[in-house]
């Protein structure tokens, strides 16, 4: 059990793997050597600090130089940048996502027995990209000054809030600090390694505090001079503040600890975003070569994914695993490999299903709610789907019929949840539907409500999400075959969110989310967790105290179990509790799944070295961040 391995480390401190190389052995990129020679930059040893992270490259020691070419799509693709260069949490996922967390910015941590306090140790002499020291004060700045500020964080990240309480921090020394709550936060360390954990290491106090009136009397005046409403907006614009704020990629002057620092910002209308190596980056390879190997990175901003596909085919892109790696494009890439000088690297998608078809259990229409709330109704709809044919058609046979459930091989796998109602049985589906009172037929041949009025089931599919439309079209045809007047409604995402806000949707097809260790962090598919739990948005609202309606007892039981998970630091117990949650999920059968996640893939240039062959794909695991793009290199 990999999860247990992580748990075993939970009580102890890490010993940093430093000291393998002596200061005089450090090497740096030629472009930096020139700068050092001209006096523009301190010596390499000084920049790296006393204990740089020594990183084992995936294949070999790389070569310095070159410009990495990537591609983004649209104006909101900031997370591609985050995943490429922004993943520098205190503790990181390992490369295989076994669930283990490894040292990164912090060399180690210790947790209190009751999981209420967590002490981290930072690297001695580590620096920001402007040469200023990175210390516990920077973390404290975020926890104490930024996070509580309503103008900067109108709502607080859920993982930092325990029972409504924000964390407090105690700075022990410049390299040591403790974060604590009065109640236990058993999932904190997992969250620190997850993508959201990068929040803690993002802000440079020296630079960002200048925008706060608390630190700078001129802050409001400066904001006015910059033409923005108040200091908070000014600070948002200059520092980004939140990991997903687009302004984070706006200001080249903001110091970072990341491998690359911004040179051409991601402003509206930009046709490309560019980066340059961070001369103070605090990682080296085993031979003492400072990372990153690559000098510069450049991302084209594409209006449409097709131009990115074309650029990839033309060999203009080094790495692409976000926008164009659909099954439909695979034949193109297979055929174009040679001409485009790239190869296809399979990647596993660690999600609970390829698609999640949710029927609205909290439908405002009482009659529909009664039908939809009937488990037999949903079971019949599930039995009506010819999954093998769909898998054949949509995924070229790459998949196994399955419901929305944690993946087989993880500690969270739940057989009943995964396999119930996955066989194709029209006869039984019809029988079940007849039995629950839908045996009447209207003039059009479709089943009617028990009172004889027509029953229409509209399946919403968001057309921007690749493949949803095709799948939804098939699903509605299968449902029609068992007498349900199912209709497909393609809509854009905004429209669907409008429906969600009003909770007026009958059913929706969406991607399934967590399937591995991330079920702890984002369990939206397994119980009403938030407004993203499409099968019961109103219950999800209730859970996050945003209104909604009170759910039945079994949902409350699930919530209680989840609270228990947070209250303990014992991974074994956490896993056990999650199985109990899934027992209820299986019993209630919230969502209908189609197939196990189909393999995804990345398109990788033959010129790009040290790329992992088996990195999983995810968001909580923000690929390719955890495989460390800083150790990629361009073969000269």
């Amino acid at each position, binding site marked *: 059990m990999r999860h247990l391995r992580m748990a075993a480390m939970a009580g102890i401190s890490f010993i940093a793997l430093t000291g393998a190389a002596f200061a005089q052995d450090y090497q740096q990129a030629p472009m930096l050597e020139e700068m050092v020679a001209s006096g523009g930059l301190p010596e390499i040893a000084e920049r790296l600090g006393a204990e740089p992270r020594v990183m084992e490259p995936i294949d070999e020691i790389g070569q310095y130089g070159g410009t990495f*070419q990537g591609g983004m799509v*649209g*104006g*909101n693709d900031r*997370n591609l940048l985050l995943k490429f260069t922004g993943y520098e949490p205190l503790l990181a996922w390992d490369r295989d996502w076994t669930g283990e967390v490894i040292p990164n910015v912090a060399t180690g941590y210790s947790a209190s027995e009751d999981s209420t306090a967590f002490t981290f140790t930072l690297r001695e002499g580590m620096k920001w990209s402007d040469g200023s020291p990175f210390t516990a004060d920077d973390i404290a700045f975020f926890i104490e000054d930024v996070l509580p500020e309503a103008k900067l964080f*109108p*709502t607080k990240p*859920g993982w930092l809030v325990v029972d409504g309480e924000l964390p407090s921090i105690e700075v022990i020394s410049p390299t040591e600090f403790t974060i604590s709550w009065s109640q236990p936060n058993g999932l904190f360390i997992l969250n620190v390694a997850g*993508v959201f954990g990068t929040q803690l290491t993002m802000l440079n106090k020296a630079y960002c505090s200048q925008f706060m009136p608390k630190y700078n009397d001129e802050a409001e005046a400066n904001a006015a001079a910059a*033409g923005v409403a108040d200091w908070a907006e000014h600070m*948002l*614009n200059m520092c980004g503040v939140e990991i*997903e*704020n*687009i*302004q984070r990629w*706006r200001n080249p002057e903001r110091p970072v600890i990341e491998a690359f620092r911004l040179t*051409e910002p991601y*402003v*509206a*209308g930009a*046709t*490309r975003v*560019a980066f340059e190596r961070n001369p103070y980056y605090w990682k080296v390879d085993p031979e003492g070569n400072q990372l990153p190997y690559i000098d510069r990175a*450049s991302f*084209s901003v*594409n*209006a*449409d994914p*097709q*131009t990115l596909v*074309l*650029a990839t*085919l*033309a060999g*203009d892109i080094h790495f692409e695993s976000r926008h164009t790696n659909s099954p439909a494009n695979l034949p193109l890439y297979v055929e174009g490999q040679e*001409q485009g000088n790239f190869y296809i690297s399979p990647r596993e998608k660690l999600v609970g299903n390829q698609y999640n078809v949710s029927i609205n259990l909290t439908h405002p229409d009482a009659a529909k709610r009664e039908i939809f709330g009937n488990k037999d109704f949903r079971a019949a709809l599930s039995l009506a789907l010819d999954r093998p044919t769909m898998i054949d058609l949509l995924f070229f046979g790459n998949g196994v019929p399955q419901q929305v459930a944690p993946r087989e091989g993880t500690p969270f796998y739940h057989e009943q949840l995964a396999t119930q109602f996955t066989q194709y049985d029209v006869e039984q589906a019809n029988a079940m539907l007849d039995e629950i009172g839908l045996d009447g037929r209207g003039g059009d041949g479709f089943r009617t409500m028990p009172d004889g009025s027509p029953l229409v089931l509209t399946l919403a599919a968001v057309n*921007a*999400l690749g493949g949803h439309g095709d799948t939804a079209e098939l699903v509605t045809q299968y449902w029609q075959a068992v007498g349900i007047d199912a209709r497909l409604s393609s809509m*854009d*995402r*905004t*429209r*669907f*969110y*409008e429906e969600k*806000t009003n909770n007026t949707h009958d059913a929706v097809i969406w991607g399934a*989310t967590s399937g591995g260790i991330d079920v702890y962090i*984002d369990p*939206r598919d397994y119980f009403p*967790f*938030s*407004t*993203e739990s499409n099968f019961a948005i109103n219950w999800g*609202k209730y859970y*996050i105290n*945003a*209104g909604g309606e009170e759910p039945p007892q079994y949902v409350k039981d699930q919530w209680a179990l989840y609270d228990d998970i947070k209250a303990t630091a014992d991974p074994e117990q956490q896993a056990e509790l999650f199985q109990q949650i899934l027992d209820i999920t299986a019993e209630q059968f919230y969502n209908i799944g189609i197939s196990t996640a189909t393999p995804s893939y990345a398109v990788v240039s033959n010129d790009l070295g040290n790329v992992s062959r088996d990195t999983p794909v995810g*968001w*909580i695991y923000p690929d390719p961040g955890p495989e460390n793009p800083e150790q990629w290199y361009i073969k000269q």
Partner: protein
Amino acid sequence: MFLFVLRRIAGMIPAMFAISILAYTIIQLPPGDFVSTYAAQLAESGTIVDSARLESLRDRYGLGQDVVTQYFKWIGGIVTRGDFGDSFEWNQPVTELVWDRMGMTALISLLTLIAMWAVSLPIGIYSAVRQYSVTDYVATIFGFLGMATPNFLLAIVLMYISTMWFGASVGGLFSPQFVNAPLSWAKIWDFITHAWIPILILGTAGTASLIRVMRANLLDELHKPYVEAARAKGMPETRLILTYPTRVALNPFISTVGWVLPALISGELIVSTVLNLPTAGPLLLQALKSQDMFLAGAFILLSGALVLIGTLISDILLAISDPRIRLS
């Protein structure tokens, strides 16, 4: 002449006002607002946004106020301070992003217009003078083919061909190394090597009708008495055609700007989306889809303004070219 220009500019004001109302109506029409779009995008990457957060965002962007107040705030900012509001999606003032993009759109439209004229004028003249000749038919057929082919189809195919067969960099108007480079001859040349594709695609759609306009105008003029009178003076035929009927036929041709320009800007929006050009199109489409209302509004408003300015310029050109308009 000065008064003429002044009068025309004054005449643009109500039109501009109407366009601003229209633009605002359009961006207000869709139900929902940017905040729900924003939530949708965050949700896709797994970030869960609760409704308190959404409300605070709505407050921040002033989305709670009534529509009329919002309109007057918006148009007031534009008129008094040149402030188009902020783009929600980009968290930037709209002014910072529209001008470059609109400028590129205007440039591409203008270049296309010039190219269309450069092609359609001689062909139109030739077609009229040699009516029903083989060239006339060929020009007509090619013109119509260009008009009948949807722009986006042509864009996809041409982009593919130029990239895969000729090794051009994909889409855009510059090679990567020139994107943020200062202006130089090399950059201009690089621009030309990229710009011909959108210009060609946009041009094909309208050249046919321009050829036909020129041809029809000239056919009308060719048989006018003054042409015969000039011929009776002993003028060489080519010079005669170019000096007299062509010159007169040019006037209605100039005024085609009034309807060619809106069509060009419209077409540019589609083509630039496919070709990934750094023009208004992709941003506008994105803004409309994500209900980034101030950004979308600014683009719609400015493209309307662009047409009005284009029409104004064509009116001025027409007045310069045609004494009957200038002197009456």
